[in-house]
């Protein structure tokens, strides 16, 4: 049988995509189906999973309400605080910084993001811990300050860890901004402040949206920051999941929480993309 060029082309395409397809199926699609199935099951007496079809796990989500409450409050608040710190930095880098140093300054913002998150969070444990800042405060007479294991410490860790990820998309959208618009605004007699609120800020909104969505989504699954800086007092969904799977071995309930988490992530992603599209008109905004 002769192989036509068309068939040969298809075979090559299929061969190129086979390993990735296998991987995506076995380690993404199949596991996801597994946790959906598990979420309708029951906990076996010895831990793990027992086949069943019940909505009890989903009905029981309230049992981990504290984790949901902490995550759904602290993740957006953390992302917003991040934005407050990030915007001026992005604005400075894109608009004010001299072109000579811009690349260096931008790289310096990115470098910490690419270094180990575990190490950076550990650094704050070190600073906020009893032998760090509180010890120094004691020397000047302020005693018994507790910094570690508080919601504040978690928020600080969030702002610190995700700041670079918030700065970058805002910087990118500000850098694309047409300078002539700013000049035109000034020529027409607008004060700098009204130029900022009338032109700069609205045009940077796609970047702001991307940054807020990215950081919020990553925070929803956060484990290390609440674990190390919240000391088990400020539980996130990620901490609840580790606890349910590795300690109490209640796999069906954990699966129900994991499925809910994915659904929340998808909803936030879709809403953010829709808002970003509306703000940006027809321009596409890449969230990933």
């Amino acid at each position, binding site marked *: 049988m002769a192989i036509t060029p068309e068939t040969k082309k298809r075979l090559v395409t299929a061969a190129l995509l086979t*390993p990735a397809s296998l991987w995506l199926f076995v380690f993404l699609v199949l596991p996801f189906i597994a946790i959906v199935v598990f979420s309708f099951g029951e906990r076996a007496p010895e831990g793990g999973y027992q086949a069943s079809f019940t909505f009890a796990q989903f009905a029981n989500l309230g049992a981990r309400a504290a984790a949901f409450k902490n995550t759904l409050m602290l993740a957006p608040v953390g992302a917003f605080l991040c934005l407050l710190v990030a915007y001026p930095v992005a604005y400075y880098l894109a608009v004010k910084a001299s072109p000579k140093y811009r690349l260096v300054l931008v790289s310096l913002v990115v470098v910490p993001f690419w270094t*180990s998150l575990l190490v950076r969070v550990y650094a704050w444990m070190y600073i906020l811990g009893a032998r760090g800042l509180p010890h120094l405060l004691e020397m000047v007479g302020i005693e018994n300050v507790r910094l570690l294991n508080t919601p504040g410490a978690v928020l600080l860790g969030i702002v610190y860890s995700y700041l670079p990820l918030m700065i970058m998309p805002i910087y990118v959208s500000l850098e694309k901004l047409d300078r002539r618009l700013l000049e035109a605004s000034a020529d027409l007699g607008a004060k700098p402040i009204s130029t900022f609120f009338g032109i700069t800020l609205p045009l940077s909104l796609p970047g702001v949206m991307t940054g807020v969505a990215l950081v919020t989504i990553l925070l929803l699954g956060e484990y290390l920051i609440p674990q190390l800086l919240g000391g088990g007092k400020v539980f996130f969904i990620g901490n609840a999941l580790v606890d349910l799977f590795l300690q109490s071995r209640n796999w069906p309930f954990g699966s129900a929480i*994991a499925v809910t988490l994915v659904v929340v992530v998808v909803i936030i992603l879709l809403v953010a993309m829709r808002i970003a599209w509306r703000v940006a008109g027809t321009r596409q905004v890449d969230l990933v």
Partner: protein
Amino acid sequence: MRGFISAVYVFLYAPIALVVLFSFNSGRSASEFVGFSTQWYAKALSNTFLTDALQNSLVIAFISAVLAAVFGTMAALGMERLGGRMRAVFDGLFAAAIVVPGVVIGIATLVALVQVFGFINPLLAAAWPGEQPPKLSLGFGSIIAAHGLFTMALVTMIVKARIASLGRDIVEASNDLYATPFTTFRQIVLPQIMPSVLAGFLLAFTFSFDDFIIAFFVAGSNTTLPIYVFASIRRGVTPEINAIATMVLVASLCMILIARFLMREKKTTN
């Protein structure tokens, strides 16, 4: 404004600098720098639990990054040849592999693998002729595979971006001059996408090397460096961890600098 910007840079770097500084402290204190010493590095490097974990992490990161680079590049090239709906399906799956929180990927992989092992192991035991049948379990293989998933997606994204900006005219010229598709690929396409493949490899290596949460679920009884560091942090802060943290920082920094350098290459060669 300048003051605020400077403060942010100090905020970003001060904690890291502090950990590095105290890794050279000759005293045990976390708040007083007594004198310079490399004793904690010596202690860390003579700790066999630590060096074993380090070795595991390096092997896992290397193998999963090689898989990610090869399969991810193949997928990027393959997706170029796809049209419409199929392409959107792959785009969606790769995006999901990156966006779904690591904690969920870890859990889902654990749950699915335990089921698969529970199904295969009895079959293996029944079919095995010898005394001791092999038993599939969590470990190196599962960490490599789970890391391979999101690092492969990362490589595909990076290489796809590079392919999109590739000059098609040279490829057409090569075909017009009767080069075989393979020759065209080897001499025209591959050299041009190579920097992005290498950058993808290094990023994949760094991500795998740094990942804690996925490995935490699927490692079984094996330990990787982040798992070891996490466990020792929970036992209490010691100067030895400062030394380990500094080494981890320097290693990931080197990887990233090389990767960024390779990715920058694409603008100049275009």
